[in-house]
């Protein structure tokens, strides 16, 4: 048994008798989340209609919320892929929860429709390049029409979410199937999941990169950065580790997985949040500093927009809030091993990732000052709530632990120094 965790025999059928089914808690969560989501998005729609700008404001607010939720959803898929590639033992006990989050990819696809569907139908309110005529006439843009056109985008959209759906389904199905297998078959399943994870990671890297490029970078079709996919990816990793920690704490609060997931697992999740705080800052700084240094107007205009007026204040908030402060906050191992402190920093970073997405997307709306308003909050709550509802629905009747995985005993006994 891992040191520092209390061993109490429970009445469920998980390890140590832990309760590993969401059951009525899941049902309640589903209904609540669905309700909140529908109301919040309804309110957003009303607010958006009120703006009378052809849904411009609404689309931007919604996109921010959506790409924020996508960092969690796509991040979860990355997380389970990497755990399989490196044959990680410590994370086995929490992998099922991540698989359930990742398997929510179809819901993610549905949630993307308010911004994706108008785009595919040629509405240029948010994505200028949806207007093919404009593209052909523009001196800078006509070269890109081979990539930035609605037909090719539609195909790519299907590829991204189709690939994520298929991959997450594969992992979840195999993992669930493993629950009922003999030890020998279970060991073979581990190998088969690992075998796919290698090539799958290549597919993931390509899809997340181009999805971020299509949805966020192309908002300003004249700007470009080879680092953009990596930048978005850094947020994905941080988001999934923070979300997993919070999800597991919530589950334990509801009496699930109480003794299987220990302070040692939370410590490791905290380490990942910390490490990717640094990685995000490294990627963001590299992207910024290189464009600043060469000072080419074609590239710097994007940053100039984000340094003007209150956008500049937001940029400082991002630097200090997303890097400097959490760096010192998460440095100490005691913080990472303390539930309340870790929860605080995970929530903090998730909020900061939202601010990052806001900072990426909103300036193209064209306001001189940061236009943060109620509609942003309602979109955020709405998309997140519907995403959670999707996960709760998926988790119905499923075990929250891969209880037959041969690496599970190692995971339960895992001790972090």
């Amino acid at each position: 048994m891992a040191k520092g965790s209390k061993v109490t025999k429970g009445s469920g059928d998980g390890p140590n008798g832990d309760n590993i089914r969401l059951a009525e808690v899941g049902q309640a969560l589903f209904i609540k989340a669905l309700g909140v989501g529908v109301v919040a998005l309804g309110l957003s729609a009303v607010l958006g209609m009120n703006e009378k700008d052809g849904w411009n404001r609404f689309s931007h607010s919604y996109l921010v919320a959506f790409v924020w939720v996508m960092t969690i959803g796509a991040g979860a898929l990355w997380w389970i892929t990497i755990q399989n590639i490196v044959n990680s033992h410590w994370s086995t006990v929490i992998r099922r929860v991540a698989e359930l989050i990742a398997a929510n990819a179809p819901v993610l696809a549905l949630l993307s429709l308010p911004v994706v569907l108008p785009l595919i139908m040629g509405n240029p309110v948010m994505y200028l390049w949806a207007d093919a005529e404009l593209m052909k006439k523009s001196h800078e843009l006509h070269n890109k029409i081979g990539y930035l056109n609605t037909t090719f985008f539609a195909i790519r959209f299907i590829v991204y979410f189709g690939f994520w759906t298929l991959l997450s389904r594969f992992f979840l199905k195999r993992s669930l199937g493993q629950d009922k297998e003999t030890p020998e078959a279970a060991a073979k399943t581990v190998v088969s999941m690992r075998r796919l994870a290698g090539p799958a990671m290549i597919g993931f890297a390509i899809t997340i990169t181009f999805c971020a490029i299509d949805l966020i970078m192309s908002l300003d079709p004249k700007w470009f950065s080879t680092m953009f996919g990596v930048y978005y990816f850094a947020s994905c990793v941080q988001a999934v580790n923070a979300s997993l920690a919070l999800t597991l704490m919530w589950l334990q609060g509801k009496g699930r997985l109480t003794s299987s997931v220990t302070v040692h697992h939370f410590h490791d999740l905290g380490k990942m949040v910390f490490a990717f705080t640094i990685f995000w800052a490294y990627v963001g700084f590299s992207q910024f500093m290189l464009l600043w240094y060469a000072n080419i107007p074609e590239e710097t205009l994007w940053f100039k927009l984000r340094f003007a007026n209150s956008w500049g204040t937001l940029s400082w908030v991002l630097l200090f809030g997303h890097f400097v402060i959490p760096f010192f906050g998460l440095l100490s191992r005691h913080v990472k091993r303390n539930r309340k402190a870790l929860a605080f920093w995970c929530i903090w970073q998730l909020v900061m990732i939202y601010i990052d997405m806001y900072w990426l997307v909103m300036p193209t709306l064209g306001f001189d000052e940061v236009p943060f308003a109620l509609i942003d909050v309602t979109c955020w709550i709405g998309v997140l709530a519907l995403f959670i509802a999707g996960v709760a629905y998926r988790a119905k009747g499923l075990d929250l632990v891969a209880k037959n995985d041969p690496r599970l005993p190692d995971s339960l006994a895992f001790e972090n120094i």
Partner: protein
Amino acid sequence: MSDEHKPAVKAGPAPVHGILAEYDTPSQILHAAREVRKAGFTKWDTYTPFAVHGIDDAMGIKMTILPWFTLCAGLIGLATAIVLEWWTNAYDYPWIVSGKPFWSIPANVPIMFELTVLLSAITTLVGMLMLNNLPHPSHPLDQVRRFARVTDDKFFLMIEASDPKFDEVETRALLESTHAHALETVLEDRITEEKMPAGLVYGLIIVAVASVVPFALAAKARYTKSATPRIHLIQDMDSQPKYKAQRENSFFADGHADRPEIDGTVAVGDARDDDKFYKGKDGDTWTRTFPSQIALNDATMERGRQRFGIYCTPCHGQVGVGDGMVAKRADSLAQGTWIPPTNMTQDYLHQMSVGELFNSISNGVRNMPGYAAQIKTEDRWAIIMYVRALQRSRSGSVTDLPPDARASLK
């Protein structure tokens, strides 16, 4: 070596330093450590070939303060980098480089990071050595033969005699109960000298003094003057055997290396004795006719038009009335200091001789600089021919045009 240098061997057996127990596996040493800790000893230690997992807890070793050293050092490194970069580049000797601000935070970040890490790392290692009392040249355990296997495959536990709970018999019994492979009494070290060897001390003093010498020499070089030139090993092309301007040369009577020009000499191809062509002068007056070298034909006119377009239109405009781009811009800036370029189609310029026009172009007039360096002599005459054409064009009448062109004016 004389007897005075040998340490006085004290009479009687050496006092006991402690009791040493030997074990074969990590499990055994952990068990033994727990027992000893339970018994309440404080001056004891275990010795292992590698860091045994769990021994910190078994022995009750508290977390070290080393990370705090690292943190402080890191912050000092960061501060050092910031001060260094700001003071050198933004305060002491600021100079503009590729348009970047003197204090360019994005450009200064990499070095801030590096110095933070450098100081942290050095402090960590030095701190570790200090906290571990290393280097530790001699220890009573060095006299115990079996202890040499501590760096190989054996685990040891020693309780020191200076511990308040130490008792030769009872402590030995306790250790026996932990199933030690072997027990041994360790005696105080009476063989190793307590003082550092004289040779080593002298050596260190010599090294310390010697290391000051380069700095002393540098200080001397910095603050004293010398009549001899600096040592200059790599000559490159620094001292060239040639005469520079204003130097002496005893070969000549006046001692100068510079020699005056000999009257009447002119570089090959530089004899410009055709005053009309080169200066626009006819004797003492400005010439009123073009020099004979200039063929007054279409080709010259075309050349003049082209050259006018390059050199003259920015100020004087396409038709020479003084409405060129530069003039328009200066007008729009309205700073009150601009004198407009001459309108060449004015009457008095119709009257001005071509020689005087040539002089204006070559040497400049009023605010117009001279263009002799930029425009070849032939081209200047061609420009003047074109200027004449412009003047004609502004002062003519419809009858000057050929019949078929008159229709376009209607």
